[in-house]
């Protein structure tokens, strides 16, 4: 489940995003790749000397203050308890803390509204983790860490659809699939699934959802956060069939920090280290694919 307001809106915005925004993501992804060799020596990760607990200028010395919204939704968090370490983003936050030398007990959670976190002005948190897409506009008022999650495309279907419960891409070939026009989701259908029946294309995700609900579609392709949102709160008799291999230039989630925060460099380094040593992929598999049921379609 995703944030009620912003995320579906964001994903709609991002999926139709301007080339500028995509370029931002491209640069981020590229810079990630560029960083990789530096971070290479995996466990124990090479750490900048400045990036250790005692030298970090956190809000409360010796503690790491992490924010998210109230309520915090599945599968990014679990049971609205960020401190339980369950759910993808909670797990990521604790791993980042560990990279910076903070013990579990040193991590303090606070609640900050989504909109406030990305508004200009001083912040009460060291970083905020709340499915923030990295965009050029937001980068003008807050800092983003390196991306910890690249948004995947997913197939959702009604429970009585012929493709519900399928696990292989080949099983989707005969399905009547739909997506919003001009999106990465549509690209995922034509490039990855390559169905035998022509996909249906809609002006908006709302029209596409209606068609799914009516049974005019066997499956609908949307990005994974939107898929969780639709299946949990909009179309209750729909399920996430699974997530598709990466396609196109994906939208990226980053940790939000105060503009020009002294921690941004260290936090980014920690995120990059987690990506390089496979922790992020592992967490994605655990919390999004297995627990949340977004099977990897292969």
């Amino acid at each position, binding site marked *: 489940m995703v944030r009620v307001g912003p995320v579906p809106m964001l994903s709609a915005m991002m999926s139709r995003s301007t080339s500028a925004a995509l370029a931002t993501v491209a640069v981020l992804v590229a810079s990630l790749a560029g960083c990789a060799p530096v971070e290479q020596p995996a466990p124990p990760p090479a750490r900048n000397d400045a990036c250790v607990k005692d030298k970090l200028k956190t809000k409360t010395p010796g503690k790491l203050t992490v924010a998210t919204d109230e309520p915090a939704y599945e599968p990014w968090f679990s049971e609205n308890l960020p401190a339980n370490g369950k759910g993808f983003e909670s797990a990521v936050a604790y791993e980042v803390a560990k990279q910076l030398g903070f013990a579990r007990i040193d991590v303090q959670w606070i609640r900050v509204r989504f909109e406030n976190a990305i508004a200009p002005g001083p912040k009460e948190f060291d970083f905020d983790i709340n499915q923030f897409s990295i965009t050029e506009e937001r980068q003008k008022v807050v800092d983003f860490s390196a991306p910890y999650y690249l948004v995947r495309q997913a197939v959702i279907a009604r429970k009585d659809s012929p493709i519900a419960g399928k696990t292989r891409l080949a099983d989707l070939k005969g399905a009547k699939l739909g997506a919003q026009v001009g999106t990465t989701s549509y690209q995922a259908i034509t490039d990855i699934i390559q169905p035998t029946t022509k996909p249906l294309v*809609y002006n908006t995700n709302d*029209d596409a959802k209606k068609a799914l609900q009516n*049974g005019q579609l066997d499956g609908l392709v949307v990005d994974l956060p939107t898929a969780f949102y639709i299946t949990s709160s909009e179309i209750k008799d729909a399920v996430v069939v699974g997530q598709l291999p990466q396609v196109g230039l994906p939208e990226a989630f980053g940790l939000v920090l105060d503009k020009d925060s002294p921690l941004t460099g260290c936090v980014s380094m920690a995120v990059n280290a987690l990506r390089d040593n496979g922790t992020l992929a592992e967490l994605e598999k655990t919390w999004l694919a297995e627990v949340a049921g977004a099977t990897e379609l292969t």
Partner: protein
Amino acid sequence: MRTVHQPSPIALERAAYRRRQTVRSVLIAAASTGVLGTLLVVAVTGAPGWQRVRQSFLDAGVARAALPEVAAGLWLNLRLLVFCALGALAVGLVVATLRTLRGPVFFPVRALATGYTYTFRGLPLIIVLYVFTLGVPGLRLRGTPPVLVLGAIALILVYGGYIAEVFRAGIESVHPSQLAAARSLGLTYRQTMRFVVLPQAVRRVAPPLLNDIVALQKDVGLVSLAGPIDAVRAAQIATAETFNYTPYIVAGVLFVLLAIPLVAVTDWVTLRAARRQAAR
């Protein structure tokens, strides 16, 4: 003895004058067209953004790449057009005939027909399309037709409303003396309509009918909001992939090409009818 026609000097001079005038007109027309054309070309190609516009709207490579998909989409438009045009003409003719029925006993029929034309001419097409293509299937009735058929029904209902009014205008333009004459010859009301009124009415409204059919040709593509990919949608998809607007131009050119035969046929029909009436 045969007399050979000898034009008078005055007649000869008149003919020569007319020839000169014709040549002069042609030259002036050519010159003014040339000047205007040059001005347009200079204004457009000399504009500071022309290079950018040419790249994003007139890219030959993008056009070639997009053509097969756009043409496949146009095939859908064409099939829908034929189906919807026939349907809307039939609905329009029936409703117009019903609206012109006389006699108190036909009041409910007239009222229904009038209500229909008021409602469907007033409703935005896109809303009717939504109701039929995404609303009706939501009932999950057995035997719900495919989305294309539902979309076609919506188009027929909306355009039937316009076309009914065009037909009604035609029917009412036939002079009452024609009806009186037909009835006095012993034709029944139905025969009068069939042999006297409708033939004249339909001929008179052929040009506005064509207008509606050409408009319909562009509107059938709106069915794409329910999923099917028409020419404009195919162009939209290609545009999203390349961030180049040339596919829209490709679709536009194809639409014009599609309209030309339709317009030409109607012009010819109208011209023929006018000639016949003049020769009567």
